[in-house]
């Protein structure tokens, strides 16, 4: 019974809206663009946030990353030629970190040596990464083939290596890398494994894009023994050198709850040992929380924009509906003469605004779903349309219809039948 009445109301509303289809369309445009923009922006925001989350999660939500950075003073003092700048993490730091920072499950130190990698006459510009054997687990490095470096390799300082995916492709385009070896300087390293492609490197701190793919991993002990910590740097004519013992230390905390405490202890310790500020601590979990805060702020701004655009759309609808009521005063009088109660008139006009707002909202939804799709295609930006944003958009449009339809509808119902019939 209620259903039949509602159907009849909607049918009547559609009929009246259809009678003025251009006007109805123009009226609904406010809703179309309002809802479309909000859904699209939500999708872009959600996509960016998920992307950031994934990147940070790949860094490891339980990890703390310490990196060596060139202190700012020495950069400005580099007017001095042939000056050796020593900075960054040292092996002794690692010992102290392990011994004193609470809640650490394991750590993995790394030293980077930019070098040319050779296989016969094939050359690949990459790096040698001297890593501890825990590096694979701590950084979730996947192996495509073979095995990673073992404690045995480390103890015996064997000349073995694991190839990054890009390095493997460049050096062994046609042959099996696992039976080959890689030459760095005067030494040969037998290949025992090939890492899976990492792709875009985790942002904010873990290093340049694709650097792991372009590297060979060797046992840290071997790297320390065979490569001098001195790295020559050439910048626009001036020659200098840097002395860096370790470039990175990744510490894995035993649980997510302990990350904050461990990070605090680690920072305090490193501030004492490196007052020059030549180490940098990155905590992915903090970045994640920061990202969540940013997202909340973004969502609030969006909610505000959504509110404003729906207000504008709603006022547009109300404006047209008021004109509509005036224009149809006589129809209202006729309907009243034929037995319509005030309530029937209210419902009739309310149904029109609700249908108008909801149809506008639905078209806007289509726009809001299509636009992110186009954005992803065109700009390679991740977007994600969530079901909740769709449901919300529809409910909010219907609610806008009710709120802004109520006044015109009640104006229509308040008309005196005799007056209304006399109107033309």
């Amino acid at each position: 019974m209620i259903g039949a009445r509602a159907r009849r109301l909607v049918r009547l509303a559609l009929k009246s809206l259809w009678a003025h289809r251009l006007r109805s369309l123009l009226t609904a445009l406010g809703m179309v663009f309002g809802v479309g923009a909000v859904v699209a922006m939500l999708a872009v925001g959600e996509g960016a946030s998920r992307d950031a989350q994934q990147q940070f999660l790949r860094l490891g939500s339980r990890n703390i990353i310490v990196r060596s950075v060139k202190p700012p003073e020495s950069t400005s003092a580099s007017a001095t030629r042939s000056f050796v700048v020593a900075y960054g993490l040292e092996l002794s730091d690692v010992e102290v970190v392990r011994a004193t920072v609470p809640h650490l499950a394991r750590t993995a130190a790394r030293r980077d040596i930019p070098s040319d990698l050779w296989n016969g006459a094939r050359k690949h510009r990459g790096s040698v990464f001297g890593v501890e054997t825990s590096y694979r687990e701590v950084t979730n490095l996947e192996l495509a083939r073979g095995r990673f470096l073992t404690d045995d390799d480390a103890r015996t300082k064997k000349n073995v290596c694991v190839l990054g995916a890009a390095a493997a492709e460049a050096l062994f385009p046609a042959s099996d890398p696992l039976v080959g070896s890689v030459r760095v300087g005067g030494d040969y390293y037998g290949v025992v494994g090939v890492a899976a492609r990492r792709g875009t490197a985790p942002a904010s701190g873990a290093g340049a894009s694709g650097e792991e793919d372009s590297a060979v991993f060797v046992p840290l002990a071997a790297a320390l023994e065979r490569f001098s910590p001195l790295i020559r740097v050439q910048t626009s004519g001036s020659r200098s050198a840097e002395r860096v013992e370790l470039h990175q230390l990744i510490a894995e905390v035993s649980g997510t709850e302990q990350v904050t405490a461990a990070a605090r202890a680690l920072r305090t310790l490193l501030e004492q040992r490196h007052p020059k500020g030549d180490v940098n601590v990155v905590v992915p979990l903090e970045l994640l929380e920061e990202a969540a805060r940013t997202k909340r702020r973004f969502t609030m701004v969006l909610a505000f924009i959504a509110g404003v655009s729906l207000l504008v759309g709603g006022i547009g609808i109300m404006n047209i509906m008021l004109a509509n009521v005036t224009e149809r005063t006589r129809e209202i009088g006729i309907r009243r003469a034929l037995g319509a109660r005030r309530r029937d008139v209210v419902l009739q006009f309310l149904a029109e605004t609700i249908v108008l707002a909801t149809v506008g909202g639905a078209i806007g939804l289509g726009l809001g779903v299509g636009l992110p799709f186009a954005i992803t295609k065109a700009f390679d930006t991740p977007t994600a349309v969530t079901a909740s944003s769709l449901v919300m958009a529809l409910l909010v449009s219907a609610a806008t219809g009710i709120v802004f339809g109520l006044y015109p509808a009640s104006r229509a119902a308040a008309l005196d039948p005799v007056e209304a019939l006399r109107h033309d």
Partner: protein
Amino acid sequence: MAAPVVELRDLWRTYVLGGHEVHALAGVELTIEEGAYVAIMGPSGSGKSTLLNVLGLLDRPTRGTYLLGGRDVSALDDDDVSAERGRRLGFVFQNYNLIPQLDVVENVEVPMVYAGVGDHEARERATALAERMGLGARLGHRPTELSGGQQQRVAIARALANDPLVLLADEPTGNLDTRTGQEILGLLDELHAHGKTLVVVTHDPGVAARADRIVRMRDGRVERIDVNRPAGATS
């Protein structure tokens, strides 16, 4: 003598205009029996339309009693008045007053929709009524696609939709040429012959001559009632 369908006792309708009281109706006494065909005549401003609006429950008397089918409708609330209007009264206006975006059948259905008649039944009854009014070939047409006479036929069909106690018409032929007017009057005669109670406001003595009785209004009062025929008798 037939039962009274309408009884008005000391009925007043007073407008206040700039401190002045204008009595559009000033103590109207009127009884209309079932099956009667009543014409209301009188000079312009004598209160004919006001009387018809009060009879049609579109307007409320300032004072006095109105019994419709024996029920006192003077003090009903708006919802009940609306229901009475829709179910027990039928209107025919000078300018037809059809709803432009609805077709013939849909226009005729409107009073039934508000009276809660089911979709299917409303459609059948509306179609039958429109056909009875000679609109069988125009059922799906919009009012703008119809002549004045055809529009007035739709209006009459619509007025009959809920089989009202009284059919009220204000100058039903006022906008029509003589011939079309005669056709419409013929339809009204036919309804009268079938026992429908009719009240028609008119300036046209030719129209009034078809009625059983002519109520002559002057200054908001019933001045005189001329009897053409005994009530209920058909010519």
